[in-house]
């Protein structure tokens, strides 16, 4: 096995990694780059806690090899906040109590952001589909759906 050199742009920062090609993207983000906001909750790509955004698409970082993300732009939960200012989705999650234990929240925020980037005002069904890859055992999802709806309706417009 020979290692490979890859470049990842995570939350606007460029990282150069020299890694074993079997390294998963989630391992690169958590264990090598050290951003532990992205979580892991299963071994079968089912729970969605590892969801990040790669080139604008929500993706399960446990089901992607890090080498496949070479040269791509990756956004993790740590990238949502811009020097102290929370992203509208983060503010909405606070207002609507869209989290409890918080372990699935990073992945949920990423799915929500990717959904709204692609479809600025989704129907309730589309929102449900947008986050049906993320399991949450605490909230029962409705508070999350309400928060996403509020952001889509412009309740958290900047400025």
């Amino acid at each position, binding site marked *: 096995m020979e290692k490979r050199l890859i470049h990842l742009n995570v939350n606007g920062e460029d990282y150069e990694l020299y890694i074993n090609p079997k390294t998963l993207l989630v391992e690169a983000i958590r264990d090598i780059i050290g951003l532990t906001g992205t979580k892991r909750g299963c071994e*079968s790509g089912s729970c969605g806690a590892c969801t990040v955004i790669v080139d604008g698409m929500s993706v399960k970082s446990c089901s992607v090899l890090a080498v496949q993300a070479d040269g791509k732009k990756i956004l*993790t939960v740590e990238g949502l906040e811009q020097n102290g200012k929370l992203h509208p989705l983060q503010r909405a999650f606070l*207002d609507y109590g869209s989290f409890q234990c918080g*372990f699935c929240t990073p992945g949920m925020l990423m799915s929500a952001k990717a959904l709204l980037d692609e479809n600025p005002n989704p129907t309730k069904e589309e929102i*449900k*589909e947008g986050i049906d890859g993320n399991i949450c055992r605490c909230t*029962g999802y*409705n508070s999350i759906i309400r928060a996403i709806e509020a952001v889509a309706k412009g309740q958290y417009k900047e400025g």
Partner: protein
Amino acid sequence: MKNYVVINTHIHNIDGIAKVTGRAQYTFDITLPNMLYGKILRSPHPHARIIDIDVSKAERLPGVKAIVTGKDTLGIKQGIWRRYKELCDEPILAIEKVRYIGEPVVAVAATREEIAEEALDLIEVKYEVLPAVFEPPEAIKKGAPVIHEGFERNINVTRHIEWGDVDEAMKEADYIREDWFRIDGQHHVCMETRCAVSSYTPDGKLLVYTSTQAPYYIQVLLAWVLGLKESDVRVISKYTGGGFGGKFELDAAQFVSAILSMKTYRPVKVVFSREEDFIASKRRTPMYYYTRTGVKKDGTFVARETRVLTNGGAYTGMGATALYLTGFFHSFPYKWKAYRYDGFRVYTNTMPSSAMRGFGAPQATFCSELQIEWIAKELGIDPFEIRRKNGHTPGYEVPGQAYIQSCGLRECLDEIEKWVKSKGELPPNRAIGISCYGFMSGGIFNWFDTPYSFSSAVVQINYDGKVDLFVGAQDIGQGSNTTLAIICAEELGVRVEDIRVHSGDTAVCPPDLGAWGSRQTLMAGNAVKMAAADAKRQLLEIGAAKMRPNIVYDLDIRDRKLINLSRPERWVDYFEVVKDALRGKEGQKIIGRGFYTPHRKGMISPAYSYGVQAVEIEVDRETGKIKILNCVTAHDCGQPINKLGVLGQLEGAVAMAAGFGYLEYMPFEEGKLMNPNLVDYKVMRSTEMPETEVIEIETYEPEGPFGAKEAGEGLTNPTAAALGNAIFHAFGLQMKEVPMTPERIWRALREKKEK
């Protein structure tokens, strides 16, 4: 309604910023310098004697630093029911015998996770496989394999509840019906699997980061099984990724990481894989229910006789409490002239069953509410009427079991009846089912044998008027940090943002029994209220000197102002008073202490919550598949404290309880769980979630802080029962097995047609 400043208002979760920005560091995220990784070799057999363990090859693998088996431990059989030593039966690392598939046998610590895993394959364990038994009816027969020596017929523990004379009372009944039910288990599926990082240092002190609901329990249990002093063990659990009842007993991640760290003097991290979390941790108790109910023609309940066999699995854990509670809640929330319950917990060679949200009540409520619906139909009585006629009322005493103080059941029934009537005539493939329920706010009985008070809190006011609140209560996502901050702010008269809550650290926070039994809002809340009152009293002394009112108790602090109650226009700024107070106390911070232990209050629990839930489903008659459209709950939790928290608890409970009712099945073959992953174990996702609505019925619970009581586990009790009743109205089927999967509904429909 009292006009509170902070209580029941829209308050953000105080851990929110850390959780929505990814800053929150869970045990899963913790790495310490020089840290090793631990992996566990588990038993492939449901029942076997350990003959020999050969670790020689594994030891030689480069990177392996330590290997431990049961023989390397003190061999103490631990358990959470410390008051009854014979119920402490779990050595965690098996010593002479394994009793369920997945039981830990050998643990390895290595420099990298991969090496530890590779080492497991090099370990050879010789077993003498013994005959195994998996279901209570077989395990209880004469000649069944003995799982625990000294426990004949595998009966682990029995519980009995009785009042009145059932045999006499049954004579008065005009209609008697008896039914058998079989209720399957359910798994917690916490998003953060069980994990721990333990670091033992040469000074003989042990630091343990872990994901737990009760840091104090883990501290005490670890000290016991490792032979350490309690205070030399420090458990830190700042953020926990979900618990639901599965994380307050000592688990293998904590025990194994500690043992390995004590051998290597290096930090050791053990993280359960999702599969390990499924097969080797405890689950909701599966039960076989027999219940016989006698009722008068006019619907008055007369007597009920119930017998339950629970599948205890390989070890006791909290099983004894589940056995008792299911008996207690099978009478809830109705008045019975005579009631008798006999519960038998039976050891089997499956994963131990123990506590999970609802703790026996969802099973009890399912069997009770369905039978009542069928009786109402048989006697031609309106389901609301029969429940209203027999329901608990404030001040009622469940003979020998419970004093009920506040009880909003009647109001909840009225609200739900109004909603059901507002739905009017339903389309043919739709139906509505209802269910009453009730739950306790924590337990009185000190089965853990703690010398400390059940809950304690310390309030510390700093020079700038900001408050540090130290509580032993543990926030596992249910929002106890926020709820307790709200209680402290209201009592002390400040805002929530003035308070920083410290929890999840046994060295810093006062002892508390932790998060289970929905006890924290009431018990820890009372402790926090007392501590805040203590601190406020010290401030009022100083305040009185400044304002010189004629009567000192005329003063209070409200929304950062020290006011004279009789003349509110005269007030002094709270922050000024604090500065004076500190100077007056030679620069000492103001400390308020509070604690709460419920002696003889309400017998088994200080207070009881009530509620009624209605569920609307849409059915596909050809396939038996049901879709939940709507779920409305009227819940009486006394005075709600944390507005967002209560709604969150309800919606989360509906998702978990609906899963228990019609989705989450756990198929076993010869003691092996066949779906230990999130592809085959069906958990509710956003697409299956119904519309939810909660109607808060506000009552005043004298025993609770500001009149508050539980809104955590109680909400998981009704949903499966309401689903069962909805299916009864939709198909005319009397479902006797849970979960009610489409195939089971289809088979029941076919049998009905053939009859």
